[in-house]
């Protein structure tokens, strides 16, 4: 049974009504529960839980430190291309946006890789727009051939592919797969993704499962906060995570919390998410999913990022550029979104050490996994 079947037994509006209807006592019962069930998660995501934010934060902190320790995985995004055939309303790469389209040559890609290595990164996340005619199998294979010697761990966050393609990529040195569903509300998904392959809700939703079946060591999921009601999105991200924990049990799962900020297309979120909301979402999901990694990107301002660290975050990016070639020739290509935390990796590492966390640049070494 795929997650598409699972999610079909839930009704978006019903879950929203359930969350909004929760009382103070419901929240207290959830906080008293030894292991949280979905019912408890609904309470912790509800407006009634706001007065309990500090207690939730304390427990989220303790639980994260106990499960992951006082360490922070460091990674950097590397955009290969901003060419895209989709017209997602919120994204800088939207095919309708007038930005400078750029695809890295193999040399560019290696130069970017070398820049990231000089910045201290051993873990990299490759991204691109959905342009299968440009990001071809051959191109990807060659790029991976160039980057693999530099990095101990390579993840991809690109257009969804088949399990077969993923098996090939794993053989070429990729060990992580990230795919955000953006919004789990199938009814409104089409408004945000009007054209291009990305308009296929189910194809995208089942991608992490295909990745798990193919054997990715790491899987990343998330919702783009601001598109829809963040409380209901939080519930479905957690539902998706617990499904993956049971079906892709050999993969380490991670959730990201990207919050919509200004992008080239000038899209304004219809469900703005405040800092308070973001904290509640992170804490509620941490209490419900103690073993899942939480990733925080450079979309957030430095001050807020530093405060979010102890609440459950286990992996962070730093010094990121969201335009292809950004590390060696910044500002040439069009960016996917505007980075709010421009601090260098070294500066972020310093903040981490000051607050009692050890930055970890190299978590796993893929060298042993293949010839």
């Amino acid at each position, binding site marked *: 049974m795929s997650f598409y079947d699972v999610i079909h037994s839930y009704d978006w509006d019903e879950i929203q009504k359930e969350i909004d209807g929760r009382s103070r*006592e419901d929240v207290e019962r959830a906080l*008293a529960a030894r292991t949280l069930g979905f019912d408890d998660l609904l309470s912790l995501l509800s407006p009634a839980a706001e007065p309990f934010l500090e207690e939730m*934060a304390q427990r989220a902190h303790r639980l994260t430190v106990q499960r992951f320790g006082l360490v922070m995985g460091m990674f950097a995004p590397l955009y290969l291309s901003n060419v895209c055939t989709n017209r997602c309303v919120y994204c800088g790469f939207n095919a309708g946006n007038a930005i400078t389209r750029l695809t890295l040559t193999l040399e560019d890609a290696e130069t970017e890789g070398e820049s990231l290595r000089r910045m201290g990164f051993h873990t990299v996340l490759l991204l691109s727009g959905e342009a299968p005619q440009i990001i071809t199998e051959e191109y990807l294979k060659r790029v991976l051939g160039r980057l693999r010697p530099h990095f101990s761990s390579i993840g991809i966050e690109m257009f969804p592919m088949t399990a077969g393609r993923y098996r090939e990529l794993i053989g070429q040195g990729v060990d992580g797969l990230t795919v955000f569903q953006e919004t789990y509300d199938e009814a409104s998904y089409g408004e945000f993704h009007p054209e291009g392959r990305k308009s296929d809700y189910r194809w995208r939703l089942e991608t992490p499962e295909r990745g798990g079946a193919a054997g990715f060591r790491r899987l990343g999921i998330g919702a783009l906060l601001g598109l829809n009601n963040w409380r209901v999105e939080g519930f479905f991200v957690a539902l998706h995570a617990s499904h993956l924990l049971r079906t892709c049990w050999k993969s380490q799962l991670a959730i990201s919390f990207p919050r919509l900020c200004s992008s080239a297309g000038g899209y304004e979120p219809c469900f703005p998410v405040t800092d308070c909301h973001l904290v509640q979402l992170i804490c509620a999901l941490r209490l419900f999913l103690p073993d899942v990694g939480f990733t925080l990107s450079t979309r957030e301002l430095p001050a807020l990022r530093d405060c979010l660290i102890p*609440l459950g975050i286990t992996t962070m990016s730093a010094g990121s550029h969201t335009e292809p070639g950004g590390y060696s020739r910044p500002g040439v290509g069009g960016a996917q979104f505007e980075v709010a935390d421009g601090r260098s990796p070294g500066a972020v590492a310093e903040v981490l050490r000051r607050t009692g966390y050890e930055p970890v640049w190299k978590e796993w070494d893929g060298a042993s996994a293949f010839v």
Partner: protein
Amino acid sequence: MKTKMKADGPLIIAGRAFGSRLLLGTGKFSSPGVMKSALKASGTEIVTVALRRVELDNAQDSILSAVDASRYLLLPNTSGARNAEEAVRLARLARAAGCEPWVKLEITPDPHYLLPDPIETLKAAEILVREGFTVLPYINADPVLAKRLEEAGTATVMPLGSPIGSNRGVKTRELIEIIIEKSNVPVVVDAGLGAPSHAAEAMEMGADAVLVNTAVAVAGDPIAMARAFKKGVEAGREAFLAGLGSPRKAAEASSPLTGFLR
């Protein structure tokens, strides 16, 4: 306060529904008559049996006379098997003896603690699933083995609470919790449950069912003990559905983490 009691659905194993979440073994009873009454009192619907050679000198009837096959699902076990080959042979014999193709896969090469051999169990499970058996493997409380068996197609996993016949209760709690959290198939805690409170504990943790034999068969009054286990299983199940609370640990005073929001 809004009280929401979740209605309990049936126990579903391999698509088949059972009203009772207590599985009972038929070994060690003082007589077939006592065993028959204990089964009835327990409300069980799945009864395990073993397979042995007929004693030629007194070849009287088998257990089938005391166990009404129409009332219970007879679940033959492979006790006595020390490896996959013997277990597969026993399972086939059970099917030939008229049992449904269900089997409690139990491979215990160590006669003292009767602890299950994980490697032979996985091997036998793969063979038996291929031959169309509904396999319920008795295993140590090993979460990775449980998932490997699930992937091999077993209908449940049956982790032990403590060694067979030890009556020491759930001594593998943390590992069984992980198995329950990660499992896509029913989890039956089997072996070592010595008292109704042990069965209740397993059900409170979220187990789908328990399997008991020694504790009922050797009790002073097996029939009364069977009733007690029935209540223990039901109490544990209802507590689980009602959402167990535990004393809320006071939030240790440390620097506020959400002060920056104000």
